[in-house]
């Protein structure tokens, strides 16, 4: 039995925020969960899959976030409680359908969980999902600690059913991936049957067909939708998850939500300012309940708003304040706009300490200047920047090695348009700085398709795109369809490492097993590309010579879309992990080090962490703990010093 399904009410477990969200949904009797992997959200669907059989629920990794939202919506339309999960970037992908869904409304409780990544700790941007709540006019909830991550999630389903609309629950990395004590409530095993009712009149929320809008008739639904938002604001006035702690008339009122609530509490505690500062912690951050806000705004003249990343809360509060100014009188607001808090990146207790101590004129220094200086100096000598690099034995390092060298040799200034995934490192020295454009899932091929058509304007550089196997299904297929149909001359390299590697190796439509561990039909990428009309070749990226030859063949073809599939499992995949391919060694006699004219190719350029430079001896050496024995480096050493041996 998983600790997530402990049936003892009152049991206490150490749960990750993402697990707390799952437990909350289980206590609410969820039946369907769908999502697309993305850090920091991935553990939610994974946890559902682990308890799916026992709790009689269905979970899936969908092809992309828009499809996930559609799958989840179907469950709601059939009267079931359902959750859809994604990271912040995913909400952009899902947003087309989301706008329509917000207008059609939902039936069974439906919660959209978006996990934002302030500071972009594992993302290519720190996009804000909160703004979507306003954009599509649905309520927004944000849990302020781990217990609330569970309790608020449970409540979100009830709210969704009461309003008849999807509810956005926003988490952040420091909530999703942090862990804390959570006390359990009763666990229900839902028995609701799925049934889609469509025989009532059009727009009937209970039993009519579910449609978002009819051209020209949009008012028919937009007004009721806004009515739901007004109702949400009323419900939020008494929401038990909006809490205040502090003196009746604080000198400074902190208004905050989410993980920033924990940072604010910490700061006040460290500054011992509990008698002077109050915290209004909001769980319902859009729409804000006006009466509640007025009550607390009236307690203090100075107000600090603590949130990450954009001043979403700050601006809403100022709008409300403007409407109440005659009753409330003059106030001073602090936050991002005043410069007391940074307007990019994630916050932490120290940022809040700095803001509060400057507003209240408190002096605070945790250690002496000289200690801090010495500690910093030690780190600057010892702790070189680690930089990001491909794992030892990563097939992408081999792929980029070949692509990079082949493009140099070709001499026509060819370049690569990339996508996001582990292969973003293709933009960095660890990927030989091969990738020259990088945006969202599938964009590499879309952009390449556009570059390809610039031939008529004199562009004569070969155009290459790279994308991973999960990304291929997610968003690159339409881009390839475009390239083929428009006869855009590009070479698309599909780095097929058999899974969604970046986020922890989740299955996708090309996998032969789904998230529930059941057999699933695996879609054949090669056959799909051929069916689309592309010329396709397939190689093993660890075979440097064959890959190079295939790549040259394809980029030399002037016409049409070509696809090179480079297939080799991710070094972290279950099938390769902990199994060494070869026992590698370096012959010290043969290794010429600095003198070989190769500029220490293996360590300085190829840069696999499995090879280290022995400064004293002036030779390279294999780090047997780190090398996974893929054997690729043996083929790159011009002196032939690196040897592949059988594993004993």
């Amino acid at each position, binding site marked *: 039995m998983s*600790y997530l399904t402990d049936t003892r009410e009152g049991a*206490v477990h*150490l749960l990750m925020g993402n697990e707390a969200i799952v437990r909350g949904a289980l206590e609410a009797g969820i039946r369907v969960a769908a999502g697309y992997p993305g*850090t920091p959200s991935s553990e939610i669907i994974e946890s559902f899959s682990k308890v799916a059989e026992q709790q009689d629920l269905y979970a899936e990794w969908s092809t992309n976030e828009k499809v996930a939202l559609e799958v989840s919506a179907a469950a709601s339309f059939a009267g079931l409680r359902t959750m859809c999960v994604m990271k912040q970037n995913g909400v952009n992908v899902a947003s087309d359908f989301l706008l329509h869904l917000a207008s059609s409304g939902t039936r069974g409780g439906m919660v959209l969980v978006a996990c934002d990544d302030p500071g972009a*700790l*594992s993302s290519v941007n720190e996009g804000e999902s909160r703004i979507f709540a306003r954009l599509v006019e649905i309520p927004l909830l944000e849990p302020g*600690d*781990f*217990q609330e991550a569970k309790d608020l999630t449970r409540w979100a389903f009830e709210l969704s059913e009461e309003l008849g609309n999807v509810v956005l629950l926003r988490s952040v*990395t*420091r909530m999703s*991936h*942090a*862990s*804390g*004590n959570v006390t359990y409530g009763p666990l229900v095993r839902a028995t609701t049957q799925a049934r889609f009712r469509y025989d009532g009149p059009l727009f009937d929320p209970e039993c009519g067909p579910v449609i978002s809008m009819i051209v020209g008739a949009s008012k028919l639904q937009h007004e009721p939708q806004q009515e739901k938002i007004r109702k949400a604001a009323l419900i939020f006035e008494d929401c038990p998850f909006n809490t205040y702690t502090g003196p009746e008339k604080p000198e400074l009122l902190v208004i905050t939500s989410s*993980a920033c609530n*924990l*940072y604010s*509490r*910490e700061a006040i505690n*460290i500054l011992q300012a509990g008698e002077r500062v109050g915290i209004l912690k909001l769980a319902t951050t859009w729409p804000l309940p006006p009466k509640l806000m007025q009550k607390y705004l009236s307690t203090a003249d100075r107000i600090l708003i603590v949130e990450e990343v954009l001043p979403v809360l700050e601006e809403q509060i100022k709008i409300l304040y403007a409407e109440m100014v005659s009753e409330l009188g003059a106030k001073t607001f602090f936050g991002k706009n005043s410069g007391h808090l940074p307007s990019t990146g994630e916050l*932490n*207790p*120290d940022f809040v300490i700095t803001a509060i101590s400057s507003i209240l004129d408190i002096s605070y220094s*945790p*250690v002496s200047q000289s*200690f*801090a200086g*010495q*500690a*910093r100096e*030690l*780190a*600057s*000598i*010892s*702790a*070189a*920047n*680690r*930089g*990001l*690099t491909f*794992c030892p034995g990563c097939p992408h390092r081999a792929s980029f090695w070949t692509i990079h060298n082949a493009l140099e040799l070709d001499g026509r200034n060819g370049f690569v348009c990339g996508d996001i995934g*582990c292969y973003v*490192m293709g933009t960095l*020295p*660890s990927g030989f700085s091969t990738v020259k454009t990088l945006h969202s899932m599938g964009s590499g091929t879309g952009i390449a398709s556009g570059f390809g058509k610039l031939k008529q304007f004199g562009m004569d550089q070969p155009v290459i795109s790279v994308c991973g196997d999960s990304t291929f299904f997610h968003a690159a297929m339409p881009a390839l369809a475009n390239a083929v149909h428009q006869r855009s001359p590009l070479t698309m390299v599909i780095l097929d490492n058999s899974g969604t590697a*970046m986020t922890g190796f989740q299955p996708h439509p090309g996998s032969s097993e789904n998230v529930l561990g059941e057999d699933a039909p695996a879609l054949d990428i090669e056959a799909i590309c051929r069916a689309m009309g592309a010329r396709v070749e397939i190689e093993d990226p660890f075979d440097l010579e064959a890959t190079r030859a295939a790549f040259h063949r394809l980029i030399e073809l002037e016409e049409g879309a070509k696809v090179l599939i480079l297939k080799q499992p991710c070094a*972290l995949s279950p099938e390769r992990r902990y199994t060494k391919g070869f026992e590698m060694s370096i012959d010290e006699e043969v290794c010429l080090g600095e003198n070989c004219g190769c500029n*220490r190719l293996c*360590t*300085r*350029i190829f*840069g696999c*962490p499995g090879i*280290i*430079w022995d400064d004293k001896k002036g030779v390279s050496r294999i780090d047997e*703990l780190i090398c996974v024995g893929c054997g690729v480096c043996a083929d790159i050493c011009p002196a032939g010093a690196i040897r592949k041996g059988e594993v004993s």
Partner: protein
Amino acid sequence: MTVSDRSLSHDPYNIIITGVGGQGNVMASRVLGTMLVTKGYHVTIGETFGPSQRGGSVMSHLRISRTSSWSPQIPEYGAHLIASLEPAEATRVFAQYGNPDVIVICNTRPIYPVTVIRGEASYPSVDDIQKSLSTLAADTTFIDATDEAQKLGNSILANIIILGAICGKGVLPIDREGFRRAISERVKEEQIAVNVRAFDLGTELSSR
């Protein structure tokens, strides 16, 4: 005094477990957290993962308290104990979270950053790191955890040896039995014994 009524010298008591992606840092912090929750403490753990798995620095922050959950990020200079699976990482974390009262436990086995492999930066001797840290911190213990773990048959057990070393310092209400229970939830039956052996070894090496 028995282990269970050993009280915390600070509330919250702040521990950082650090290392390089893939060293089993997250596992160590979760096991330690579970041991303390079982004893009735409030534990908050903050950790980052993601691209950090690809050779980057990783850090787990543990806050242990009798009364409540705390921020998943420890304030600057606010650590009470720093346990590092890699020597350079100990200094990186120390610069941000260390203070003259901190206890440092550190594995001696370096993992070279790509910048060092490429020859753009250098890596000092582990002895020098140890010397400098011992002048700045209240208590430093360096352990050849990776070598010891290899002797036990798997280098990944270095994280458990370091966990044992934390226990050996006697600053937390944890013990071997609690470890056995917590690890049993996470590893296969046949691996429990070797994990307990690694834990004992760490305890012994740090309490010497």
